């Protein structure tokens, strides 16, 4: 079971409340789709600068592996507070610990609600099982 302290998107991001802000990352499924369990296959990750405004559903960055490039999509609207400075030079963090150490950006959300299209861990897993 994936962590149930957060919500999930259909493009395989997770979002977790952390005080007044939210942390956003990608799921183990997304990492595995990109690198098939081989952390050396991840080659690049582009994250936004602090201060950037993002809309829910908008692309805030990119992650690239030997095989493919994937967009990183914001689950909610808000202002980027910071990007995880460790990711760019240590992409292996994403395969080792996508849930905690592998957070990508911290966002000050426009609204407190994390509803809408977001799924619980159980809903995400049921959807994965059905569609992949």
């Amino acid at each position, binding site marked *: 079971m994936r962590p149930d302290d957060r919500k999930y998107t259909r493009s395989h991001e997770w979002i977790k409340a952390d005080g007044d802000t939210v942390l956003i990352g990608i799921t183990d499924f997304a990492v595995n789709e990109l690198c098939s369990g081989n952390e050396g296959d991840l080659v690049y990750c582009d994250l936004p600068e602090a201060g950037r405004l993002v809309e829910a559903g908008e692309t805030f960055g*990119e992650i690239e592996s*030997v095989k493919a490039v994937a967009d990183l999509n914001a689950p909610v609207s808000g202002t980027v507070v910071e990007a995880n400075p460790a990711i760019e030079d240590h992409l292996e963090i994403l395969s080792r610990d996508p849930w905690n150490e592998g957070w990508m950006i911290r966002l000050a959300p426009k609204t407190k609600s994390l509803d809408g299209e977001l799924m619980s861990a159980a809903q995400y897993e049921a959807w994965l099982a059905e569609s992949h």
Partner: protein
Amino acid sequence: MALKATTLHAAHVAAGARMIDFGGWSMPVQYRPILEEVATVRQRVGLFDLGHMGRIELRGPDREAFLDRLATNHVAKIPIGAIRYGLLCRENGDPIDDILVYRAQDHLFVVVNASNTAVDVEWLHQHRAQGPFRGVEIIDRTDELGMIALQGPRSQAVLEKLTEGVDLGAIKYYRFSFGRVCGIDGVRISRTGYTGEDGFELYLPNPQAPRVWDALVESGAPEGLTPIGLGARDTLRLEAGMPLYGHEIGPGLNPIEAGLSFGVNLTPEKKNTLGYAALSAFAAKPTRRLVGLASDGPRVPRQGYTVHAADREIGFVCSGSVSPTVGKHIASAYVAIGFDRPGTELEFDLRGKRQSCVVQELPFYSRTRG
């Protein structure tokens, strides 16, 4: 639509391969990290299931003249026992596919891309019906033949353990013979491949393919042999400067500007070949050229990225990859004439961001050049 599967499908799944849809077939993209698989083929030997490739046999007295009407290479001049690269093109010079033609004493054997097999077979039938070649037999062998490739410097050492009645050393590059492999008679063995390494491709009846695959895995293990997926195969062929239909060639991407003139015979003897006039015109006045681009930047170039000289767009990427052999990120790209000289500094546009790269001649890697 359900994907087609080769007779080796179960072996791939059992070996833990990640399977993908490739040209309508469920095929292994990788068994291990792609970059490690590339190194295995460059340094030792790798095993490939190519059962998805189209294989078409032509028989009948006019088979050479028939294929010479459709293929850009000069089929009638291929020595018996030799193999030549060519293309099937439309009258406007657009490639329908690129092919290998094996010329045997009593037949021609044509190997084509999986995704184009149905179109190629239809193209052959259509032109046979139109012309004076109704006596030519077109036999699609794709569903009855397995195809297994051994690629890498230790290929011959591995295959020799399992062959009888054929001197592998006597089969030179782009030649073929028939021999006994694992006790199966009449296996077509060619010294060909799509990796830039020495190696062999075997064509044998489908029911026997799993046994031969297993025997090669077992007897190759001491030489470092492992199965290799389509992911590594794509990097290997790009490093070796070999084209892939749908990337370097295809509708609007002619073989002349792709640097494939060695497979396009434009002598007057071939003037009745489909596409002859259009291809002659491209040869007389090329506007762009397929080159290699190498980059030290962090991003991997991908098909469709544009190529720029300062603020001018001068080309586009056909294929791109991390290259463990070269140690850079590499791409094949069409660039306008004038920007194609080796050493020219250009930039990719990677989804809105620029990254510098340098033009170099293809191939990036040649085993004979070192």
